[in-house]
């Protein structure tokens, strides 16, 4: 097996005085799905743009598909599909023309590109829209067309920057479904998203980014288990000092946000009984999630 699909070591990028990417190292193996999570402005898009050479790194080394991005990004792009965060569909062209023209950029022979376009229109459920103008498409259709366009040359590696942001639940589920199918076919995938649960299901590993750095990185379940625990209890309404003191003996960590008290527990033993003995029945008990980890690491204040 040839080494890593992505091999980034200490890459950095500043815009003026702002350090958008501050020493990111990342190795992704063939067939793996890696998810980057992070609040707005964390540096996700800049990192992704560095991978295909749209942003040049200030320092560090960056190899993608075994090639150096600084000198060979054109050859790298020939084998990789990119779905950018911004809409970059060609609004002067129809759906079909978008795919046909893009196939030309990859020098795909005419006949092969026609069959590929047919296949992708079906795969992304866009067949009946093939002759439509881009401006008549819904947000979900545009995203699907973006993904279809990124797959036109059967890439080995697919990058998606917030592929489901702004989509309705139906469209979102379709996109995740298709991505899972692509992953099952062996495609290496790197994506960014704000949908934690979907990332947790889909990604073999995730990295949580903030301030241009990865705060943690690893398999989602392991990370949640290690950094948050197994279970969360949410208690509405205030908590008295003596109640908080009484929790000392249990293996829980606590957090108070507005009028909610969160208890993060590692083994769950005795917590239910304790709550009930204090007459607290108004709690919600649920498994710890990636979102708990995300908020724990990146804080709760708004970013934009």
């Amino acid at each position, binding site marked *: 097996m040839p080494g890593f699909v992505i091999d980034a070591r200490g890459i950095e990028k500043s*815009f003026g005085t702002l350090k958008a990417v501050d020493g990111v190292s990342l190795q992704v193996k063939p067939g793996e799905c890696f998810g980057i999570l992070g609040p707005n402005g964390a540096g996700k898009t800049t990192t992704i*743009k560095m991978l*295909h*050479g*749209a*942003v*040049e790194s200030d320092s560090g080394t960056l190899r993608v598909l075994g090639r150096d991005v600084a*000198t*060979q*990004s*054109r*050859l790298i*792009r*020939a084998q990789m599909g*990119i779905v*950018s965060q*911004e*809409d*970059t*569909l*060609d*609004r*002067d*062209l129809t759906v079909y*023309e978008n795919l*046909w*023209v*893009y196939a*030309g*950029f*990859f*020098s795909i022979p005419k006949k092969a590109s026609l069959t590929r376009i047919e296949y992708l229109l079906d795969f992304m459920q866009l067949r009946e829209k093939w002759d439509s103008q881009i401006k008549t498409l819904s947000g979900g259709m545009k995203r699907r067309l973006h993904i279809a366009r*990124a797959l036109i040359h059967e890439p080995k590696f697919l990058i998606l920057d917030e592929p489901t942001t702004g989509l309705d639940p139906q469209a979102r589920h379709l996109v995740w479904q298709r991505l899972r199918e692509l992953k099952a076919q062996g495609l290496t995938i790197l994506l960014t998203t704000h949908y934690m649960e979907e990332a947790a299901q889909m990604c073999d590993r995730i990295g949580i980014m903030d301030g241009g750095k990865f705060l943690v990185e690893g398999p989602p379940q392991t990370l949640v288990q290690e950094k948050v625990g197994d279970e969360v209890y949410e208690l509405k309404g205030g908590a008295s000092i003596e109640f908080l003191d009484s929790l000392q003996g249990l293996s829980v960590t606590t957090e108070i946000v507005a009028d909610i008290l969160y208890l993060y527990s590692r083994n769950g033993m005795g917590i239910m009984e304790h709550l009930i003995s204090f007459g607290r029945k108004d709690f919600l008990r649920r498994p710890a999630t990636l979102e708990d980890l995300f908020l724990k690491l990146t804080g709760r204040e708004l970013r934009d």
Partner: protein
Amino acid sequence: MLFPQAPSHRAFRVWVRHLVYYRSFYLAEWAGNLGEHILWLVAFGYGLGRFVPNLDGISYAQFIGPGLMVSVAMWNATYESTYGAYSRMRIQNIYESMLMAPLTVGDIVLGDLLWCASRALIGSTLMLVVLSLFGLVGSWWAVAILPILFIEAVMFAALGLIATSLAHSFSFFNFYFSAIVMPMFFFAGTLFPIKGLPIWVERLSEALPLTHAVRISRGLFIYGHVENFIWHFSFLLGFTFLFLTVACVLVSRRMVE
């Protein structure tokens, strides 16, 4: 690789993209072009021309005919490489999407320039058709003007693309048009001879690339031969390569952060 953003044969794929778009509106554009060309020729060649004495035995309409062909090429190439290219580069993210495919900035720039020049050439060809319908073409060599105009159009498209890569909004082009394109149009000998004007105007005129396209075209159009062809041609070619190189560098800077 020494020049990772250098142009290649893949520029053709970029040109094809523009052609696919063009298919949706070219008939309307041709009709508009024809109407405009006839209007210019009638208003200037015959309207204004009634008050202009024959120049070296040539009617004013015949004098400005090749001048109009040359300026159509310049204006078309300039519009397409400023307003058109700015929209592709900054508003529609079309360059960005091309850079997510295996194309270089050089491919995109060259493809765009070839496209601007192709469109300009169509405009000039329609002008040639109008001029021949009015019986103004003096020599079959007039057809040989077209490849010259293609080079001229690539040059002006490259200059326009330089302006586009420096622009931060469409309003920059008002400046570019009034400071560069308009003076070029008036002082290149398209509508009136430069000879006999103050010496500094003559000197300025000699330095304008458009002047050299005008000289070649007028010679071919009326007499079928051009004096000092090599000099004028080299001047055009030199500026074309210069502007093309500068355009590649500046667009690279704009596209890769």
